[in-house]
Structures are given as structure tokens and as C-alpha cells.
């Protein structure tokens, strides 16, 4: 089975990118952006995850079948988020229980 050979320089660059993103995460923790703080933090986290999945896990150079399984993993994570959130969003919809 042929395998794509990734030059070490790519890994070095990805490592550099991850280090910069880590420093950015730390810096942003001291900047008050109000409601946008979590948005920025999650965006940086997604970028880090993408770098790791695409390059360190070699998914960028893998078959379509591998892509399907990787996408499946993220889809399952979305299932968790999208089915937990309605619980939190709809708890206040209920009328309080009246005592007998």
C-alpha cells in the first residue's frame, strides 16, 4: 500500500503554528471581549484540532474512506452538542410545578 511521505519541514511548520496558537490562547485569556471570549477560544481550539487531524494524523493525505470516518467522528460530536443543548435551552419553558 503506497503511503504519502510528508517532509519533516511540514511537521516543524505545524508545530510552530500550534505553538503560536497556544500562545494566542493564553494572551486572549487576558483580553476582555465580553461574549466573544468563548467564541475566540473555541475558534482557536478548532484551528489547533484541524492542524493536528490534517497533518499529524495524516488525514490530509489519506483515502476518502478515512475522510468519511473522520467526518463521522465530528458528526457524532455534533450529535452530542445538538441534543444536549435543547435540554438546557428548554428547561425554563416549563411552568413551575404547583404544590398539591
Amino acid at each position, binding site marked *: 500500500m503506497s503511503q504519502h511521505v510528508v517532509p519533516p519541514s511540514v511537521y516543524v511548520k505545524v508545530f510552530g503554528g500550534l505553538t503560536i496558537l497556544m500562545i494566542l490562547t493564553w494572551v486572549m485569556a487576558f483580553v476582555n471581549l465580553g461574549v466573544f471570549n468563548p467564541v475566540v477560544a473555541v475558534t482557536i481550539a478548532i484551528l489547533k484540532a484541524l492542524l493536528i487531524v490534517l497533518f499529524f494524523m495524516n488525514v490530509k493525505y489519506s483515502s476518502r474512506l478515512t475522510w468519511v470516518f473522520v467526518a463521522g*467522528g465530528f458528526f457524532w460530536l455534533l450529535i*452530542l452538542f445538538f441534543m*444536549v443543548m*435543547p*435540554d438546557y435551552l*428548554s*428547561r425554563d419553558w416549563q411552568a413551575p410545578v404547583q404544590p398539591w
Partner: protein
Amino acid sequence: MSTVAIAPESALMPKRHYANVRHSVASWLLTTDHKRIAILYLVSITLFFAVGGFFAMMVRLELLTPKGDLLDGDTYNKMFTLHGIIMIFFFLIPSIPAVLGNFLIPLMVGAKDLAFPKINLFSWYLYIIAGVVAVTALVKGGVDTGWTFYTPYSSTYAKTEVFLAVSAAFVAGFSSILTGLNFIVTIHKMRAPGLTWFRLPLFVWAHYATSLIQILGTPIIAITLVLVAVERIWGKGIFDPSLGGDPVLFQHMFWFYSHPAVYIMILPGMGVISEVITCFSRKRIFGYEFIAFSSLAIAIVGFLVWGHHMFVSTQSTYAGMVFSFLSFLVAVPSAIKVFNWTATLYKGEITFEAPMLYAFGFIGLFTIGGLTGLFLAAMATDIHFHDTYFVVAHFHYVMVGGMVMGFLCGIHYWWPKMTGRMYPPLLASIAAALVFVGFNCTFFPQFVLGYLGMPRRYHEYAQEFQVLNVMSTAGASILGLGYFIPGVYFIWSLFWGPVAGPNPWHAKGLEWQTTSPPPTFNFEEDRPIVVEEAYAYSIEGAESVS
């Protein structure tokens, strides 16, 4: 009705096979042969089954009388917790995939081994490391949170060995993930020529679906348990409300894995039943494609139903309604399987060998377990039944009545393949009957106890519940005997059992086309080529291998 011939007299044991090719202990502990690793798992899970069974025995003995005569409350809590942790993480989840799946999937797809043999051995070592950590937790005083590790008790208040127990479950999870990964790659990449997806044995389909759950769900429980440890060790508020956390979030994350984990346990059992029902009915299975896709449907829909464990947890009623509907939905693919197995029996040439008896037991007990699950999926009735013995009875009907029956069914069916020897058929049938009777005596009274309102996880109970508890404990002793007998005759058969020959059941499938026990690389000659559909029992003169 016809009789299946067992062990032709001319059958001979092959001189060289996977089990005798080398004899040293190191050759077993460092093996990468999937069949030897399966045997390592078989020995390991049997030991854990005995340990978990001991804790179950202590629980049942304590509940023989209403007062806490044998155990105090704290010790009782540890007993049922350790019973749950050991049985679920160290017996039920790995049993069929790690033993029968490991042994059979390469044989069934016509491969020499699994895709990653070293990772396969590594997963066994992870399992053993996890087991050692669990036993350490036990020796150091045990854990009392229940196998569910509900927060904030587990993360903040429990004074027992929660960290060790959580670590054990965490490591065992990685073993499970690696096994699932190995199966998926093997099934995709290593099928024999001609073995298309719709010629695969349903056992393989069931394991494919199981593997999907293992690799998609297990990481969630792993991270959840890490978060419990983080809160417990460093006091970071994640689940404990007094630290700003949310205990219901733990339940969401825990059950996102742990409900599908029920399907990790039961789907491989369903795969076993599909093989056995067809073999001993001498018929192609009814609705092959429906059974294959129902495995995938169970795996996928099973991920959408976890909230039915949380109807009384302060989860939103509206979310509860959605989870309730989806829980009813997952009953459909399960029912498809039961109907199709039953339809397969129709006009079949049925014989009643021990594996078939276990298969019948599986169908009946799983059906009861599944149907009583609907009571718990309906929000109104669940409020009454929640945390009562009804729930205990329900999940034991699924996990023990279903999965353990499936495991015993599979072990009896493929024992001749694994060892090359037969076991005494009459004794095996008696043991199957004892297991069935003992199981029902143990757990059916618990449905009634739950209906009457007896709560679970208490070491004392009201006097009015004693008669049913005595019945349950008496049943457990019959069940224990039913489990003990196969252990004896299987060991006997290793030394003195009649030689089985390659295909004692006259079954279809590639695993029966090689010697019993198989050689190290599974097939003596060239790789088999598949030229017919699965379960071609009714096609005269058909050959599986050319």
C-alpha cells in the same frame, strides 16, 4: 426434524495448529495471532466474570433477609458497585467482540489475521492493566459510587477509591477502541475475493456496527471520566454545583456512551444468534439485508436515546419527550431481528443442540428485556419505575438474558472450532436449561418487586418484599450452577472430548472450511475464494470455497 451429525468418527486432530505451534508462556504472552489473543481474552474475562459473580452472590445473600444481616450499608454499596464495574467494563463489553470476534472475524473474512496484530495484543495488555487497576481499587477498600459514577458524589464526596476505579474504566475504554478499530479496518480491507458486503456473515455485520459504537462513543466516556478526576483531584468546578458545575451535564456525557454501550454488549450477541439460528434450522436467514442494516440502525439510533435515563434528573420535559420518542424508535430494528430469526425457524429442519437452546433462550429473554425497556422509555411509567428493581430486572434481561446467553451460545457453537474437541451434548443441554430457569427465577421476581416499589441499591428493605427476594436469591443459586457446569465440561473436553473435525455442525461459512483448530495463518492452502451467498443451507451441492 433431522439430526445434525456430530464429530464423525474419522475426524482427526491436525498435528500442527495455532495452539500447539509453540508451547512456552512467552509464546502466548507475546503472540500476535488473533486466535491466541482471543484465548487470552477468554481466560481473562472468565476470571473477571467469577469476580463479578462473587459480588453478585454477596448482594443476593444480603437481600435474602429484610435486615442488613450480612453486610452493612457501606459494604453493600461497594459490593453492587464492584459487581457493576467488573461485569460491565471487564466482562460484558469485551466478551463477545474480544473473544469470539477476535477468533472468528479473520476466519470469517478469509484473512490470515486482523489488520493490526500488534495493536490487537496491545489492546489485551491495556485490558489487563485496567483490570489490575480495578483489582487494586478493590483491594484498597473498594468504591461505592455505583458503576455510573454519578457526580457530585463521585467527584467530591465519596471517600472511596473512585480515582482508581475511574482510571480502570478509562484504560479499558482504550482497549475497546483499539479492538473496534482493528475490526473495521479488517472488514473493509481484508475480505477474501468474492466476499462482498452482502455475502458477509451477519456476525461480521454485527461486529462492524459494534465497532462503530466503540470508536465513536468510547472517547466520550473517556473524557467524561477524566473530567471527574479533574474535579476530584484539583477541585475544578465541572459537575459539582457547589463549585459552579452541572451534575446533569455529567449524566448527559455519561449516558451518551453508556446507553450505546448496551448495544456494544448486545449487538455481537445478536450476531451470534443469527449464525446459530440458521445453522440449526438448515435455512438461509430470513431477510438478510434487513438484519444487516438493522445492526447499523441500532448502532446509529442507539446514540440518540440516552436521555431516557434522565427523565427524573431535572432534564427538560421537552427534551425528555424527544428522547422518549427516539427510544421507542430504536425498538424497531431490534424487533426486526427477532421477527426475522423467528421467520427463519419457520419450516426449518430444527435441531436442539446446546447452542440452539441458548439461542432460543436469548430470543425469549431479550424480547422480555426489550419490551420492558418500553415501560422505561415512556416518561409517565418511568417516573414510577425509576431506580426500582424493575430497572434492575430490565437491564439484566437484556445484558445477562441477552448478552450472556449469546456469549454462551457462541462459545458452545464455536468451541469445536477453537479447541478441535466436542463437549458432552447432554450435559450442555442440561446446563442451558438450568441457566434459563435460574435466570428467570432470579430476575422475574425483580420486575414484581420494582412494580411494587422496592428501590434498588439499598441493603435493607420492607418485610413485604422478602418472599420475592428469597425467590430471586434461590434462582441465583440455580443460575450459578448453570454457569459452573459449562466451565467443568469445557475443561474436561480440552483433554478428553471427542475430536470434532473441521465442521461438526455441517455449517456454512469460511471458518468451517479450515481445520479445527485452525493453523496459525487460518487456511492451509491458498486464500479461499467465495462463490456463494451467506447461509446457503438450502441450496443443494453449493460450496463455500472453490
